[in-house]
């Protein structure tokens, strides 16, 4: 099965959608960057999207690259959280500790820049393919 130009648009669109989801997750992490929680279980955890390649499901062409990327999962970090002593905080547990969320603002900012750059790259490629399709259609106008 060949890849026609229209399908290429679909591939690039999947990239745009995945990068936009990545930006969304980054924004959510940044918004919760300073949060504290009452226990390890209830504190906000930094979320990370997991990207994977879209492959064909049909058994005859199984695992051939058919174009595109998908976010297959959004996982939470699982390192033990840091805590600080704040006995006056209403959220403090019986030891006076509050647990600090593990969002690293520097990492999130870099992630955001990378996602924005890839989004832009996808948009430019789409525009270029769109021009090719238009030219092909106009070539028949004779």
């Amino acid at each position, binding site marked *: 099965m060949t890849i026609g*130009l229209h399908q290429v648009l679909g591939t*690039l669109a999947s990239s745009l959608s995945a990068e936009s989801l990545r930006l969304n997750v980054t924004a959510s992490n940044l918004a919760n960057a300073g949060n504290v929680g009452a226990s390890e279980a209830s504190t906000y955890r930094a979320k990370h999207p997991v990207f994977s390649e879209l492959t064909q499901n049909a058994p005859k062409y199984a695992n051939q690259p058919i174009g595109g990327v998908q976010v297959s999962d959004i996982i939470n970090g699982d390192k033990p959280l840091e805590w600080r002593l704040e006995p006056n905080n209403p959220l403090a547990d019986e030891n006076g500790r509050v647990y600090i969320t593990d969002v690293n603002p520097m990492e999130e900012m870099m992630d955001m820049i990378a996602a924005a750059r890839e989004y832009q790259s*996808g948009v430019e490629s789409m525009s270029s393919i769109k021009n090719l399709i238009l030219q*092909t259609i106009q*070539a028949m106008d004779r």
Partner: protein
Amino acid sequence: MTSIFGLAEKALTLCEHRAGILSNNVANASTPNYKARDIDFKQALTQVSSSHRLVATQPGHVQFAAQNQVAQQPLKYRVPSQHRMDKNTVDEEIERKNFMENTVNYQANLTFVKAQYSQLMKAIRGD
């Protein structure tokens, strides 16, 4: 039966196919463990243009034009210029350059096909 547009038509189909591969690379630029792939255009074109008859070697093969041949070009891996922690081998600049090259190639072949077509129309109309 060979096409009236000759080599340019086959090159056009190949360019389309390659555009799909390259844009898959661009889309997966941050997927962990993804390896950048491409086809050897020159080799593929030689192979597609030299065989005039499609041989159905398996029961599932359908006999239509150059499309099936194009689909069977071997996908090669691109040699990475630098190593990344997530084992991804896509280099944005290289992929962009190849993408542009392919686009220009497509446009060139389209121009040839257009020229052939308009000559044909002239002959039909008798100008």
